Every structure is written in C-alpha cells, then in structure tokens.
C-alpha cells in the first residue's frame, strides 16, 4: 500500500459496522500495517446511527476521531443517506479526490443531482453490493451483512491478505474475550447460535466475503 487509507463505515445500530471495522483493523494489524479503529455512536440502540472509522497506513498514524476526509465510504444501509442517519453531513462532502463509495443495495439509489455532480467532479467511484442479500443467501442470516460489506470492499481493493482477514475473524468470533458493547455482544450470541462451530461460521463468512466481492456493480456517475 502506498499511502494512508481512511475509511468511513456508516450503518445503523445492529448492522455490525463497528464489528466490521474491528475485523478490518485487526487484519491490517496482522499484516503489520499501522492502523487505528474508531467506533462512534450516540445512543447505542438498534437502528440508531453507528459509524466506525479505520485508518491504515505504512507510516505512523496519530490522528483519531471521525474520518472527515475518507478515501472510502461504506454505507451499510440506505437509510444512512435517505434518512440522514449518520454523523457526518453533508454526507459525501469530505470524500477525497478519486475516492470510493460502497453501498449496501441491490439497485442504485436515487442520489441527488448535486451529489452526483460533485462526486463526478471528484472522480469518485460508486459501487453497489447487495450485502444483506448475499448474507442471507450464503450464511442464512442477515447478521452477516457486515461481513458481506467487507467482501465488497475487498472486491474493490484487497486491503489486507485474505489470511489476515480470516485470522482476524477467527479472533473476533473465536475467543470469549472480545470486548464489545452489550448490544454487539447480544448480536454476537445470535450469530454464534446460527452456527454449530466457530470454524464453520468462519468458513461461511469467508464464502460471504468471496460472494460479495463477486456481486459488485459499479455505478456510472456520468
């Protein structure tokens, strides 16, 4: 990787944006990259806005807090944009020149003309991935939506090795020791319930990653 990647993940409480950020960050850390992960939330409630920020680089990273000028924006739920359920507004403003947007949706959203125009000016790339659908299809639960979103991301740009990603998931779902908020812990339990064994779950998750990577559509701004 040549320069710092700053990622903003915006979702709703319960969708696992915070977990996705942790998995991605830990994977990068395993690949010996410099990394910080910041979750950010107000009321920790299902469907309330939840954002998470990941910064990855080969150089030391000091900065923390919200990523105001992301290279990559991941949108876990259309409501983030359509209902303004996010911490950053106007939503696309900070996206860097040549940045990437990844949206969980099967079909393109109706972006405003202004948004489309300004994104085009910045030579932004927009991708859609039906993450919830993929999660349902492959692992049988929409709770893997966040993993599918990571799959979409890796489909666009493999931020870490697959091995690191898999190990990071293992660490996250394997031990009992991971520190998560109560809401997250409750969802973790629900996820684990779905699968008999952790290994089985990781396997499914890696399949979700692959499948999601294959289900990307690029959306033309012009």
């Amino acid at each position, binding site marked *: 990787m040549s320069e710092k990647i700053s990622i903003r993940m915006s979702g709703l409480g319960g969708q696992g944006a915070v977990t996705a950020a942790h998995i991605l960050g830990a994977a990068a850390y395993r690949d010996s990259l410099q990394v910080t992960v910041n979750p950010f939330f107000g*009321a*920790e*409630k*299902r*469907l*309330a806005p939840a954002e998470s920020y990941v910064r990855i680089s080969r150089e030391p990273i000091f900065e923390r807090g919200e990523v105001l000028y992301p290279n990559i924006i991941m949108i876990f739920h259309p409501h983030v944009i359509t209902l303004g359920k996010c911490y950053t507004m106007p939503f696309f403003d900070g996206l860097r020149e040549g940045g990437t947007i990844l949206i969980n949706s099967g079909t393109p959203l109706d972006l405003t003309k202004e948004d489309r125009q300004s994104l085009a000016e910045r030579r932004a790339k927009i991708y859609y991935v039906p993450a919830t659908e993929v999660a349902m299809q492959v692992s049988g639960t929409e709770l893997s939506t966040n993993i599918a979103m990571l799959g979409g991301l890796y489909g666009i740009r493999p931020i870490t090795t697959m091995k690191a990603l898999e190990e990071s998931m293992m660490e996250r779902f394997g031990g009992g020791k991971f520190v998560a908020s*109560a*809401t997250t812990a409750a969802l973790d*339990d629900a996820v684990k319930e779905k699968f008999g064994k952790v290994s089985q779950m990781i396997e499914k998750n890696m399949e979700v990653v692959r499948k999601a990577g294959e289900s990307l559509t690029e959306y033309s701004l012009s």
Partner: protein
Amino acid sequence: MNKPIFQISPGFEEIMPPEYRELVANGPYGKGFGVSDLGSYKELIEEHPLCAGCGLALSIRLALASLPNPGDTVIVGSTGCSSLVFPQVALHNIHSLFGNQNAVASGLKRALKLRFPDKVKDVVVIAGDGATADIGLDMVMQSWFRRENITTIMLDNEAYANTGGQESGMSRQGAVLNMAPTGKKFPKATLPEVAQAAGCAYVAATSPAHPRMLEKAVRKAVLIAREVGPTYIQLFSPCPTNYKFKPQETIPLIKQREKEGIFRNQEYISDEAQRFLDSLEEARKK
C-alpha cells in the same frame, strides 16, 4: 382542543410537517382517550429510536395513552433509554440530569400550582430503574416524604440498559451483568414496599403484559397525585438487548415470571386515596 397551543396559525398549515398536522387534527388532547382507543387516533409519540421490540417503549406508549389529561400534563424524565423517546413526544417534557427527576418535578409542580391556581397541571415522572432506585433514590423518596403532588413511574428493565447493561439495584439476585461479573450479590430492591413506607398514597407494580391494568394504575396514580399525595408505579419489563432474549419473548417472559411468583402485580391504596377515588366515582355518577 380549544387551547391555542394545539392550533396551527392560519396560513401555516401547509408548511407544518404532516405528522404535526395529524396530531392537531387527530391527537388525544382533551378527548379523554384511553388505551382502548389506541389504533384510532394520532398518538403522542412520533417514532422512537429505542431498540425494536423494547417492552420499555411499550410501557411508555401505554402510560402516555393512559394519561387522564395529556393536554395539561408535563413529563419529567431522566437519562436512560427512555430519554431517547421524549424528544419525540408531543408533550412538554424535561430532561435535566441522571437521577434528579423527582427534585425537578417537585419544583416544577409547585411553580405550576402558583402560575395556574385554577387549572390542573399534572406532573408525571417517567424514569428508569437506575434513575429511580439507585442514583435518584434520595430525591424520589424525599418527594414522597414531602408529599409532593406528583406521580412517579419507574420503567423497570432490571438493568442500566442505556449504558450497556450493567447491574442495577433492581436487577435480580444472581443476574450476571456488566459490573456484576460474578452475579448480583443482593436481592432486587423492594421499591413498592419502600414507597408505601415512605408515604405514597398509591403504589402499583404491573407490566406492559397487562395493558389495561397498566392503564388503570396510571389513571388512578395521576388522579390521586392531584389531590391526595405522591403516587408510585413500577412497570416491569426486562431489557431484551441486555438480557439477551428475543424482543418477541418479552411478554411471554413477563407472564412466566408471574407464574413463577418472581414478579407480582401489586396494588396498594391508602384509605384517603380510596375515599378520594370513591368521591370521584360518585361525582361521575351524578
């Protein structure tokens, strides 16, 4: 609905949000609605951000639908899950600090009495178990000792839910929660008994599993608080998120607890309060 506060100034109808217009046209103020009328009028809560399926949200919805006079009711809340509902509630309501709800309500009620000597202004406190039985207990009890004319409703989800599920004084003994890693070491605080000992004129414990019982309790409590003295209602509804059960299991779970005798619907009414209710009933009959 004659109070100007509920009317939209002529010419402004168009620019008001549709929910607001609906509220003005079809809200519950001054209509004498109750729980049975739910589903047929525009309610006071306009969407809320609590977890989907939260029984505490249901408790609040039912409690608000049970208010005898929403058009002149001011709510005092406290920090906690419930405080996320109140910005969405079409009543004047106060959030001050975590736990000081009954002190705020005491000042508020007395001042409202001064300003509106000829009107009934109900002051109803709605707060979590942590706010009521832990951090705010002194102020709750002193408002009872002082015989303030306010109703206190505790939303007992058996935890500090909004901060991520820590043990509260209302958690059951043995419950393993955050900050109680080896299980809670002491029993659930007996607030209804304490309330009675502290001078409440009316005390009830019930749950959203019994909407009509809940409604009766709230109505009685608010009416009695007006004239007789402080009243207390405890609404039982464990937090699904933090106790890790499915929201749809909430009501079966409450009923199961009732069967096991772990939770008891209770009601206590002082003689004076009973006489007062009887007199209202008399008056109504005439």
